């Protein structure tokens, strides 16, 4: 015990002399906090400031046909404006429904048999509506892709014959750009999805399917690898137990490939989000892609700043989607040694 204290004393010699261990403890804790502030907060904050400064100075030197390239201040201003437009639009919508309700009530009071019409508000979608549309679209495309990719991946992982049959197709279609898929998807959807009163807008279907076509591949490949590299002893366990095919897949193959599968899903969603913006531009799906395109066509002096707001929003939502997938991935990963980040 005494030697321990002596050793500690040796170790802490360079510190201000103190007999109060509690105080010393507090001091070290403070030092920890300072270090945390420096590394986890100050460094990223400083880098961000540096970036904003650089952006500001460079942007002011670039003249475009739409005026100077906007700096952080203009972008901030436009972000505020977009939010303001959103609240105004919502107020207008509320007012519209209130007027309609009042009118209908009055009509009914005058003549109980009067025909009452209820119309939906048809204002133009705000920036936030468009964000919502984009997220819904990418998630539907991603869900569709997952629905195909996981079974295909499992089958490819279990059977080397099927893998050899499908692999060339995967390798060829994987690098294809969404811009190449979109015209084909558009034509096929128009040919097959014929309805007088479509439940889903064609632009939405086109964008979602394009997302699907571009983001199935990583999940297929990762699931295949996950299933194919399953520990042979575990397969032997299922053979000794005489598990049926479905039980084997459900109890042994799926859980053991789940970590890699989710790594693939995460990559897929990232690609899907990137692809979506391009798809929406061309398909005119009322999401962020269309927002960027419309602002570009609009060509006002505010357009570039508004597009940059959209760029930042796209980046931030992409980041959030990735975080959400990361949390899922961590949740399903059973191997405590696996490093997931």
């Amino acid at each position, binding site marked *: 015990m005494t030697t321990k204290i002596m050793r500690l004393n040796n170790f802490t010699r360079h510190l201000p002399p103190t007999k109060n261990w509690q105080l010393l403890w507090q001091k070290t804790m403070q030092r920890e906090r300072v270090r945390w502030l420096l590394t986890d907060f100050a460094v990223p904050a400083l880098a961000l400031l540096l970036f904003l400064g650089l952006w500001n100075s460079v942007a002011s030197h670039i003249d475009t046909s739409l005026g100077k390239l906007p700096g952080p201040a203009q972008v901030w201003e436009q972000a505020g404006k977009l939010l303001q437009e959103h609240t105004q639009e919502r107020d207008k919508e509320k007012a519209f429904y209130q007027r309609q309700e009042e009118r209908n009530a009055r009509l009914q009071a005058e003549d109980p048999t009067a025909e009452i019409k209820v119309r939906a508000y048809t204002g133009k979608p705000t920036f936030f509506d468009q964000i919502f549309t984009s997220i819904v679209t990418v998630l539907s495309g991603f869900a569709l892709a997952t629905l195909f990719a996981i079974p295909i991946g499992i089958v490819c992982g279990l059977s080397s014959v099927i893998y050899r049959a499908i692999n060339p197709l995967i390798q060829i279609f994987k690098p294809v750009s969404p811009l190449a898929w979109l015209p084909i998807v558009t034509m096929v959807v128009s040919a097959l999805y014929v309805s007088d009163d479509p439940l889903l807008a064609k632009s939405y279907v086109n964008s979602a399917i394009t997302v699907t076509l571009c983001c199935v591949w990583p999940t297929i490949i990762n699931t295949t690898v996950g299933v194919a590299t399953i520990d042979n*002893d575990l397969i*032997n366990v299922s053979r*000794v137990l005489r598990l049926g095919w479905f039980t084997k897949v459900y109890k042994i193959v799926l*859980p053991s490939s789940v970590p890699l599968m989710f790594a693939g899903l995460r990559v897929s969603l990232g690609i899907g989000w990137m692809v979506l913006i391009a798809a929406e531009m061309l398909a005119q799906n009322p999401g962020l892609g269309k927002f960027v395109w419309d602002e570009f066509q609009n060509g006002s002096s505010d357009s570039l700043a508004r597009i940059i707001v959209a760029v930042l929003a796209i980046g931030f939502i992409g980041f959030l989607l990735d975080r959400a997938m990361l949390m899922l991935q961590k949740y399903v990963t*059973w191997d405590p040694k696996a490093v997931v980040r």
Partner: protein
Amino acid sequence: MKSNHLEVSQVSIEFPTRNGPFKALDRVSLSIAKGEFVSLIGHSGCGKSTVLNIVAGLHRATEGGVILNGREVDQPGPDRAVVFQNHSLLPWLTAYENVALAVRQVFKGRKNRKEMDDWIKHNLQLVHMEHAMDKRPAEISGGMKQRVGIARALAMEPEVLLMDEPFGALDALTRAHMQDSLLEIHARLGNTVIMITHDVDESVLLSDRIVMMTNGPAATIGEILQVDLPRPRDRLELADDPHYNHLRAEVVRFLHERHGRKVVTPFAAKAQDSAADTANLAAGGV
């Protein structure tokens, strides 16, 4: 010997390789009585695991076959439960769930939910793992994992328990504990056991017979040693038992002299090395 419970009959196996077929086993014949504990011992790569896998049904013999209770073995099944060398528990399931997977499959329709639950717990108790049944494999030690693996195998109520170097990856102390547990379980349940081992003491302590295999290729049974030590056996008493030591020496002698690789004692090795060095020097280079 009692009626033939398990009969390994003239089993040969060839594996296709780039340089033509490789004959791993050549006419291995062995008959095992019910309740007998048999060890397979031999040098690495002599085909012990292949014999076990053929009995398990995981490999098919090229010639000959295995007959269990008068029926030929043609596929794996829970009547020949395997305890794998590296435990092979499903890492995402707890100890309880790992055993439950086996129990639910084997006793489907024969036991109700309550009976299954009791049976799972009973088997975990048998290997002294009831305290950690809600832990996952990554949270328990190597010895504990192997215990759960044994519980899973026992829970299948196998005709034959096949153990592929079950304690090979454990430290000496844990291994001794596991051997004692296995002795106790075998005394209680009287399973027929085939165990592969590298450990001479383990084989003598646990088995009724030790099957010593020659080196491959075309490995076969070199000699069978009857271990007629009375049960129950106690490792401390046996340590000083001259008969135990004699049997032990028999196995060592077989492994080292008769059918093993030529084993060089350290002293002789040194002499041989220096002789080789001299030869090299004489030839003008090292």
